[in-house]
């Protein structure tokens, strides 16, 4: 299956939760030097649940769409719930068949999220 599905491209062209940062939130930066992708993510919690989340950065279609979908998903979820998310979840969330080389692009925002949950 082609990975450039309409829904993926839509999130790439109009990413949710992109730009700016969460005031008084924690922030983290992750990168993949191999392709130059960089994501800065900021997050704030209320009663152990995600209140607000934003991301910035340059990336390919997959990492941008993954950031967009993931940041939508995490809102109002507890830290404990989010700690359980893994690459299988990301693949399911994107709903596309990623080759082994593109998994790295897809899980980059998850790496950022996990760092914010520590």
């Amino acid at each position, binding site marked *: 299956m082609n990975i*450039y599905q309409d829904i993926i491209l839509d999130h790439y062209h109009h990413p949710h939760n992109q730009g700016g940062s969460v005031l008084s939130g924690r922030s983290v930066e992750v990168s993949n030097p*191999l*392709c*130059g992708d960089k994501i800065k993510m900021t997050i704030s919690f209320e009663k152990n649940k995600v209140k607000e989340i934003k991301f910035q950065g340059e990336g390919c279609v997959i990492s941008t769409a993954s950031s967009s979908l993931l940041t939508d998903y995490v809102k109002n979820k507890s830290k404990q719930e989010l700690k359980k998310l893994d690459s299988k979840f990301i693949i399911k969330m994107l709903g596309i068949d990623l080759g082994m080389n593109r998994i790295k692009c897809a899980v980059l925002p998850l790496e950022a999220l996990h760092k914010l949950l520590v």
Partner: protein
Amino acid sequence: MLNIQEVKKRFSIFQNQPDLVYLDSTATSLKPKSVVDKIREYYEEYSANVFRGIYPMSEKATMEFEETRTIVSGFINANSSNEIVFTRNATESLNLLAYSLGRKILESGDEIVTTIMEHHSNFVPWQVLTSEVGAVFKIIDIDEEGYLNLGINNIKDQKSNIKNINQKLKVLDQIITKKTKILALTYVSNVLGTINPIKEIVTQVKKINPKIIVIIDAAQAAPHLKIDVKDLGADFIVFSSHKMLGPTGVGVLWGKEKLLKEMYPFMYGGDMISEVYIDKTIYKDPPHKFEAGTPAIGEIIAFKEAIKFLNEVGMEKISEHEKKLTRIAIDRLTSTFGGEIKIYGPRNVDDHNGIVSFSFGKYHSHDISQILADNGICVRAGHHCAMPLHTRLKLPATVRASFYIYNDEKDVEKLVEGLKKVKKILKA
């Protein structure tokens, strides 16, 4: 003129994948049937170890193995096959030099000079060595077009221009000093495609410092250009079999015999030893001094079939063909996409080997190569093991299309069509 259809018939992969558009020979080349057949011949007919058995099979294997050394020696016009050391790849050849030569001659305060356009394998070994010894690591920059910044654009073109030659000497004079022990330099950039004027550079640096050792990374040159080690004047030249139609697992280190004799061994073990006592060991002479352990026998034996193939086609014809394709690719990409595409490296294809690296719109290199892949076109995306160069160009990554003897104009057209699809899919 090369008859590409005839060339393609000699590569089984095109029978298995008739629509293959392979534009990644800079990473590794495809292999002709003659090479694959020779590997099979070794494993099926005389798969004994070399330099050991007295029985006929081992003698046959040794003879075939050493014949490759002689053919490689002839291919680059070396003085003797004793100057040809087999390694795993060009990377290992360079690491061998950093270890066996670098540790021997480099002292605190000395200098090693390399360039910003190197592959990591001709950059990191010298960076690490200088840092361990307390020596100075110096980098030659590039200019905006992707030529080495030696003060003039192209030494060859400007030979007759006295004023520029003086200027060039002045610039090299600032880089190379009496303390420069090693200049490690690529013949052809694996990203920009720039063909460096090696002979002229070697002549100039040896005038400034006659004791300097010049090491040439010819991994991207040996598959495409006629190499004459005597004419180039360098002290060491390295390249890989797998980029020039040969098997993987085979690299070449050519060095002047006197220097090879003076160097430390690289690894210790079988084959490289002449006598071993409890208190000391006597090593074999080069090249065997550097070839410890059982080598990639079948692959080395088959490597000569790759060189025979290249010789049969002719290095000059190969070079000419690639220049033609590079010209066509640069022209077609520019005329189709205008300012949307940016191609790196010299515009003059006489100085530009068959490598076209580019960025396209604001599209990410991985997305471009993925969509091209979905359309059966193989290109490379990323920093191509040349991160310092990409940092210098202020780019995270590029897309690279490269040409060899089995590519033709149709492949260029497919690349152009593929990029049109990229635009169609990714545009906002």
